[in-house]
């Protein structure tokens, strides 16, 4: 009897059912790509110049100079690290209430919308844009950087915390509620134990994002190692720039290994 069943099977198309439309879309993409590539103008002379500069840059990397600008580098690094740590702590402290307020299963609708609004604003504005604003407001230096990173941390952490709270085990919440617990006790006993490991993991992750961002926003004047790096490149001191980049890579790697070790330890 088994001979009467088909011996071949093909996965049915999942997104676009009609074969004609599928081919039309594929053709459209190919035509667009061809046209777009045609509009790119390449000035080969400038490419050659750039390659020569790139070569000097690479040479600087291979012979990084930590010594001649060490005073500037170490000041920049300390500024960046200070900025990173303080902004992460302040950002986390603010994002916890905002994140709880943005969890639909814990708060009434008006609170939810306000907190989601705060998150949306913080996430909509990219760090560099906020840094430009804040540098204009508070002047050059790490204070503007600290404010920028704190603000960006709120959007990132509060959103992920809120999403995590919305996915907690409802049975545990129900059980604690059934004992006659107040709202704060409910958060402390049923919610906090469920989200704590992830909150710590996310905070550590944000710590290393903030360090990397501190290098970027330094370029627009918000202090830290980014400012030092910018100065070094402006002065064509590629050996010092190389040293700075190596230091940034090293610190990010330490943060990466350190935070994954800590997270494993906390779980």
């Amino acid at each position, binding site marked *: 009897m088994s001979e009467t069943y088909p011996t071949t099977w093909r996965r049915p198309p999942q997104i676009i059912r009609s074969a004609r439309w599928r081919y039309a879309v594929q053709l459209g993409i190919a035509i667009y790509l061809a046209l777009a590539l045609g509009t790119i103008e390449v000035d080969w002379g400038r490419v050659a110049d750039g390659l020569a500069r790139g070569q000097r840059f690479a040479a600087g990397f291979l012979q990084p100079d930590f010594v001649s600008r060490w005073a500037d580098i170490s000041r920049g690094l300390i500024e960046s690290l200070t900025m990173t740590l303080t902004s992460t702590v302040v950002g986390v402290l603010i994002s916890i209430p905002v994140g709880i307020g943005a969890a639909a299963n814990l708060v009434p609708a008006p609170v939810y919308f306000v907190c989601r609004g705060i998150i949306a604003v913080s996430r909509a504005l990219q760090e560099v844009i906020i840094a430009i604003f804040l540098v204009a407001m508070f002047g050059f230096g790490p204070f503007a950087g600290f404010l920028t990173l704190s603000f960006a941390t709120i959007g990132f952490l509060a959103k992920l915390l809120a999403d995590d709270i919305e996915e907690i085990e409802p049975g545990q919440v129900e059980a604690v509620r*059934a004992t*006659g617990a*107040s709202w704060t006790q409910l958060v*402390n006993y049923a919610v906090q*134990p469920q989200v*704590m490991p992830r909150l710590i993991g996310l905070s550590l992750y944000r710590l290393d994002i903030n360090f990397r961002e501190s290098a970027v926003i330094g370029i627009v004047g918000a202090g830290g190692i980014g400012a030092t790096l910018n100065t070094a490149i402006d002065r064509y001191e590629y050996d010092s720039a190389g040293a700075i980049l190596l230091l940034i890579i090293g610190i990010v790697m330490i943060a990466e290994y350190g935070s994954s070790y800590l997270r494993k330890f906390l779980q």
Partner: protein
Amino acid sequence: MLHLDGLSKTYATGEAALSDVTLTVPQGQIMGLIGPSGAGKSTLIRCINRLVEPSSGKVILGDVDLARLGKAELRRQRRRIGMIFQEYALVERLTVMENVLSGRLGYVPFWRSLLRKYPARDIQTAYRLLDRVGLMNRADSRADALSGGQRQRVGIARALAQEPELLLVDEPTASLDPKTSRQIMRLITEICAERGLPVIVNIHDVPLAQQFMQRIVGLRAGRIVFDGAPADLTEAALTEIYGAEDWNAMRQGDSEQAEAEADAARRLEALAK
């Protein structure tokens, strides 16, 4: 004593989960609530402590109508009602002791619960309850390190820590093996008998209900269709509750299971010799 009067619940979807349920549970009675899935058993016990808001009707515990309370007063009244859950509903990352002490949350101010500085009497009660359910040496374990039966024992201790006047039990054995199920049912009924505590147990295992309950109420599509002693639960009554099915085969299956258990126990004993 608990008295439900004309209790109804219609969900936002328009589905009527409970229609006009009137029921009295006297002091010290162990009542089983049986019925098919979706008959409204869970809704009924959750309407009592208002984890689900009833649409209409009264829930009278002692002389308070729970259905009419404001938020703060509801929290105070919830302390009087202990609840035991199907999937244990322990807070898994907290210790066993914290889970038991969480039964006292309605009685202590926030700072005490936050700092885990419970009054000496509460801690003593928690230890006594842990000893009663046989988990004295697991007080400092995390709840997720326990087996299913042990977790349900913690659930029982937590509910009793409230010093409740009524116990609601939602499918206490649904996630447990048959032997542990019987142990848990025996523990619940023994403790309630000791304290003269009225209990409502949602239970889908009819033989288990007949073995342990003093009274059985059958629910079908949100209405009470049977109310009587376990012995009165005839085949006709079960058909009324669950629809047509071969009930004798089910009973037989259960006696087979009991035999198999006894056989396994004998073999273990033989091995031990």
